């Protein structure tokens, strides 16, 4: 199973096993990763699953759709590496992916 590495705002890291096919948000909320809320359940309505994805994984992800791009524009401190992790599907080639959790989601 691929492993995902979440880095909390204080720099501490948390590794979790992820089932391919699930969304990263679903994995994170099931595993109680603090700071990823996933309020809308993954339908791209809330942006409480905002993360920064490190290279080279960021570049390996399927491009965000228009809705996600628009939501990200208004997220808290978006950067060029911002994604809504409910829109990222876990796959074997994402093993080791590093996701940084922002200091706040609203």
């Amino acid at each position, binding site marked *: 199973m691929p492993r995902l590495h979440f880095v909390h705002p204080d720099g501490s890291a948390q590794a979790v096993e992820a089932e391919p096919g699930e969304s990263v948000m679903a994995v994170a909320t099931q595993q109680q990763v603090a700071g990823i809320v996933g309020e809308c359940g993954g*339908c791209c309505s809330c942006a409480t699953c905002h993360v920064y994805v490190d290279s080279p994984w960021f570049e390996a992800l399927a491009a965000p759709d228009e809705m996600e791009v628009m939501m990200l524009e*208004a997220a808290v401190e978006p950067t060029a590496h911002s994604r809504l992790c409910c829109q990222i599907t876990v796959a074997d080639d994402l093993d080791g992916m590093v996701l940084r959790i922002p200091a706040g989601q609203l």
Partner: protein
Amino acid sequence: MSESSDQHYVIVGAGQAGAEVASELRKRGFEGQISLIGDESVAPYRRPPLSKAYFSGDAEADSLLVLKPPQLEKNGIDLLSGVTVDAIDRATHTVTLSDGRSLQYDKLALTTGGRARPLPCPGNDLDGVFLLRSLADVDAIRAHCNAETRMAIVGGGFIGLEVAASARKAGMAVTVVETLDRVLARVTAPVVSAFFERIHREAGVDLRTGVRVEAIEGTTKVEGVRLGDGSVIPADVVVVGIGLIPNVELAEAAGLEVDNGIVVDACAQTSDPDIVAAGDCANHPNRFAGERIRLESVQNAMEQARVAAGTMLGAESPYDAVPWFWSDQYDCKLQMAGLSGGYDDIVLRGDPAAEKRFSAFYLRDGQLIAADSVGRPQDFMFAKKLVTLNIAPDRAKLADPEVPLKAFLPA
């Protein structure tokens, strides 16, 4: 928090609020026992897809679960499913369960949600008439439907309209009957209602507003819906979406204060210091409403649940989150921030009569109190912040789609 390890916290109602109370207790380091008791037979799940992706077959039941059984176990959350809490004895700190057991609690959380309001008319018990609140309800409806089904939906609220969109997607013939003169009348302005009426009519829904349902006709099975004007809409399946009745009976019988919901304070505490309540069942003071209110939304279920968990742990911090809601119908996503009740002015961005992207901003005394956005998620996101901060934006700029709402935020 070592002294917490011999405590037993009991949560009644294993919905989204109940699951969030349990999760939050663990995230905050509670080490005692957590019992999460729910009368449904499944682990806690999200209801919004029930009328959307799950209804139309685009989502699996498994993907609705908030916490799957292995995660519940890993976090030491004892889920007692298929069990009802029948009584609370506050003097002895005991709850009695439908399977005969009784449990002693140190702190109790009531997250009992609500149940769908039945249609108060003859024929409401015919085969083919359904309410919609649970996964089991939707499974039963779907088992009754195929692409040839003629579906009549009673109620033009969010659930009724979402079911209409999902049923049209599945190829069914759909009629929606709403008693009031417009859909979504209790939650949006007339222009927004008119927008949703337009997209449903464009999708082929037979939408009737301003008409009452007199009876459901049929001998054993549904055959049609008889309206106040005497006409009959032929139908094989009737879905009723006319509102929610909060589950307060348990609290009321235990002598807790109840008034359109279980009465709680800003920290989700009931009239008993050892009992909190949160979610659809809780009537709470809300600064965005300017009064007490009972909200029916995921936002409220989750955020109030976290406040309730804090209160159980003795770390009271008042609930002060801006209400928000969403709805997906066809290819349109509606996102609502704030509460629009009591607005005295409305400003539009975009043309809801012609386009599928617009925002309606609700003002009171010049202050932005709410926004409904369709296909303009940035407006929604920034409106949430502006509403929280009591901002009074310039009206002309607010109407200009070229001015990003961000511009109204304090530097």
